[in-house]
């Protein structure tokens, strides 16, 4: 009897193992076999939890968005600056206005008047907005928020945007629905500096001294399209709609941010319908069978520029740098790393292609092996050897590095690749005497071109090329002071040309973020896809 049982147990276990081995081989490409599973499920045998939850709540619609980290229960307007925290804030609170690549989109403010001396900005506020607890929103809330942001001890995320060595931005209440912000000096990027700051209710936070940890953060009162109704640590954040939202009540009843940290699990969850939206990489999206899983991909531009910088402290010969750049084929690199031209834009200068200051009127260094050889000969360097550092765990950078190596070898360079830890890399890059000739990196800066100066001015915090070009510094200083739009455009076109001419900076690609969404969700275009927050206004989303 006992033996018999053992035998059966043994066989069962063995069977499980063997079966496991078999399915795993097929498991590499779940999409290929996904078709039957998905269509079979609509027959009703195995409902997914998302659907089950929906029906149990009596026909309420729920939109579930998979996020890769826990925003925590202490999100607040002043100190929260991580992506998931900001996404949570965007649901609950509203800013005066959003400032993105395509311009200003007003929320709590209706319009901005700029004074003749370009120092004061008068904001006219909406007078029909109520906080989710019923109190009226007024200019006092705005003044309160900006003043809290300017207090050094609060360590607010926007502190450096509002307080300069020349002084702090002055904020005054003109009347209940008008506030005036005064810059300490003329700065054409001022409108951007005041944007994206969410306004918190004075009557709730008045007596709070520590914004990071207090009793009110967990019961937020906001003006956003949704109200936070439930937070389950490590699991999800649930929002219910704010019927009194000033831009019209949202169409979807509940929005859930489901925390899924493992990429593979998230990928399976979006295909099984357990979540409705998720951010994927090109390689992950390529593995999925979008149609059978009823999914659509929305690539959107975050204004990121991935670059290769040449360390001018080591590669001092400009001809040699030009020889390097003429050997490279940008499009081939982007295609290999990002798989489809839908998923990237090609930048030709340091500005992201979606910026209104972006120009193609620069030296593009389009691949030209003859030119590369000419410059190499002119440089007088025999058998050039280079090393390229990149983040080894970043698949985009690893692929790009291989391509760069291959392309440079065709032009007669010997390239050593150093794939290192991303934190170690950035630490190394900060050191002027680092031992790398070239490195990969990427940035998302602001909308205004002046925000890029910290990358390109001599000695600037993020200038890892270590060149010395007083002309570029001078131009950035001019651009900062200039208020005339056309003149600014001229100046920044000039800067883009000059930087390209140094042959130290090579923009690789401007990769998009890929939002994978269930086809049951519509209104994505109306909700507008924006950097960081994903949706500019979730109230516009709809679910079938």
């Amino acid at each position, binding site marked *: 009897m*006992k033996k018999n049982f*053992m*035998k059966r*147990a043994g*066989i069962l*276990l*063995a069977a499980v*193992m063997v079966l*496991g081995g078999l*399915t*795993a081989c097929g*498991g590499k490409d779940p999409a290929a076999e996904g078709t039957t*599973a998905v269509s*079979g*499920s609509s027959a009703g*045998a*195995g*409902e*997914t*939890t998302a659907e089950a*939850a929906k029906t*149990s*709540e009596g026909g309420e619609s*729920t939109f579930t968005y998979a996020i890769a*980290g*826990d925003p*925590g229960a*202490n999100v607040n307007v002043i*100190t929260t600056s*991580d992506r998931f*925290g900001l996404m949570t804030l965007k649901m609950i609170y509203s800013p005066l206005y959003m400032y993105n690549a395509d311009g200003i989109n007003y929320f709590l403010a209706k319009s901005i008047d700029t004074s003749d001396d370009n120092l004061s900005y008068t904001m006219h506020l909406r007078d029909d907005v109520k906080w989710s607890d019923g109190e009226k929103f007024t200019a006092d809330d705005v003044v309160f928020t900006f003043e809290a942001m300017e207090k*050094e001890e609060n*360590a607010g995320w926007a*502190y*450096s*945007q509002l307080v300069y060595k020349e002084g702090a931005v002055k904020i005054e209440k003109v009347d209940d629905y008008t506030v005036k912000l005064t810059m300490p000096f003329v700065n054409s990027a001022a409108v951007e500096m005041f944007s994206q700051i969410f306004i918190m209710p004075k009557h709730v936070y008045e007596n709070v001294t520590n914004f*990071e*940890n207090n009793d009110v953060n967990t019961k937020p009162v906001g003006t956003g399209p949704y109200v936070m109704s439930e937070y*389950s*640590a*490590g*699991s999800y954040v649930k929002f219910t709609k704010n019927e009194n939202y000033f831009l019209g009540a949202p169409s979807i009843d509940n929005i*859930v941010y*489901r*925390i*899924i*940290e*493992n990429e*593979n*699990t998230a990928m*399976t*969850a979006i295909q*099984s319908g*357990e979540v409705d939206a998720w951010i994927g990489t090109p390689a992950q999206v390529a593995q999925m069978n979008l149609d059978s899983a009823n999914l659509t991909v929305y690539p959107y531009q975050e204004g990121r520029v991935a670059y290769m910088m040449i360390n001018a402290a080591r590669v001092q010969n400009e001809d040699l740098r030009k020889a390097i750049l003429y050997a490279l084929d940008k499009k081939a690199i982007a295609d290999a790393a990002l798989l489809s031209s839908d998923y990237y834009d090609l930048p030709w200068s340091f500005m992201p292609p979606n910026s209104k200051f972006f120009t193609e009127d620069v030296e593009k260094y389009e691949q030209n092996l003859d030119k590369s050889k000419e410059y190499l000969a002119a440089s007088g360097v025999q058998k050039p050897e280079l090393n390229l550092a990149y983040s080894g765990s970043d698949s985009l950078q690893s692929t790009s590095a291989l391509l760069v190596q291959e392309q440079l070898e065709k032009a007669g360079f010997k390239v050593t690749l150093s794939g290192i830890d991303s*934190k170690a890399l950035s630490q190394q890059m900060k050191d002027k005497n680092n031992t790398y000739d070239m490195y990969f990196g990427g*940035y998302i800066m*602001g909308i205004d071109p002046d925000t890029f100066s*910290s990358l390109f001015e001599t000695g600037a*915090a*993020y200038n890892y090329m270590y060149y010395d070009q007083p002309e570029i510094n001078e131009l950035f200083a001019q651009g900062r002071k200039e208020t005339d739009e056309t003149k600014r455009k001229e100046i920044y076109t000039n800067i883009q040309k000059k930087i390209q001419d140094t042959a130290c900076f090579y923009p690789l690609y401007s990769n998009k973020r890929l939002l994978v969404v269930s086809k049951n969700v519509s209104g994505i275009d109306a909700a507008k896809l924006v950097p960081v927050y994903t949706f500019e206004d979730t109230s516009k989303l709809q679910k079938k």
Partner: protein
Amino acid sequence: MARYILKRILTAIPMVLLITVLCFALMHFAPYDAIDAMTTPKMSQETINLIKAKYGYDQPVYVQYVRWLDGIMNGNFGYSIVTKQSIAADLAVRLPNTVKLVLPAFITAYILAVVLGLIAGANKNKKADKIIDAVSSVGIAVPSFWFAMLLIFVLGYKLKLLPIVGMHAVGKESSIADFLKHFIMPFLTLTVSFMPANIKFVRSSTLTQFSEDYVLVQRAFGATKSEIMFKHVCKNVLLPVITRLGMALPLLVTGAIITETVFSWPGVGPYFIKAIQGMDYPIVMIILVLSSTLVILGNLLSDILYCLIDPRIKEMG
């Protein structure tokens, strides 16, 4: 015996202290500090200094250590750098979730391992032994994340029997049925990952006992196989097995890091992993201290258990 136990407890205290020093020192000498995690490229040096001062990183190391240790002693584990949450409050939510998952899985795995190990050991080189031994060898080699993905793929994605993500469906925190549905896959994964090593242990322990002289004597006296097994061998086999229980104590915190991450189980695992990725040093340090303290406590517990169970040691003390 009381003296022996007291001695063991007293030696454990400096070990725990040493561990806190080690954890703190290692984190301190890591090439990037918590400030790197908090600052963004847009911040000016002044703001960075400000943040440094705010979190006390401008103080000398020993002051930082003493303040930190003082905090731990008083149950103030500090705050996460990334989410600004109190770590003690976070762990209070997450630890029970991990225990809820690990404890049943471990107990199941343990009982199964004892049974299967005894069966295998008693039937040395017979078919049952070969199968159990082979399966546990394979089991040791199978990585838990792979087995977990396999379950997700088959049960969650293809057959759509079970939900893939989390511990509860949204808004169903009080439903036990819903919890069980979410529980099955991570539970199976953990059971399968805990079992093989324990089977091997019980099996080899059984084999050793069967080769002892007293078994031969019993046989010579004509004792039946089951008599030898349950009256004599079993007791001797279970002795080291029970003391192994103590060693399993740290599993309650770190036993399911990978499994929890794969299933988005809101336990200590994802919390720890996220903290490492985000360089959230206060969290990493606390969990390191917690789990290594549990290792010491586990060893202590093993010793004490051994002492209580085994009369030979009892007399020695």
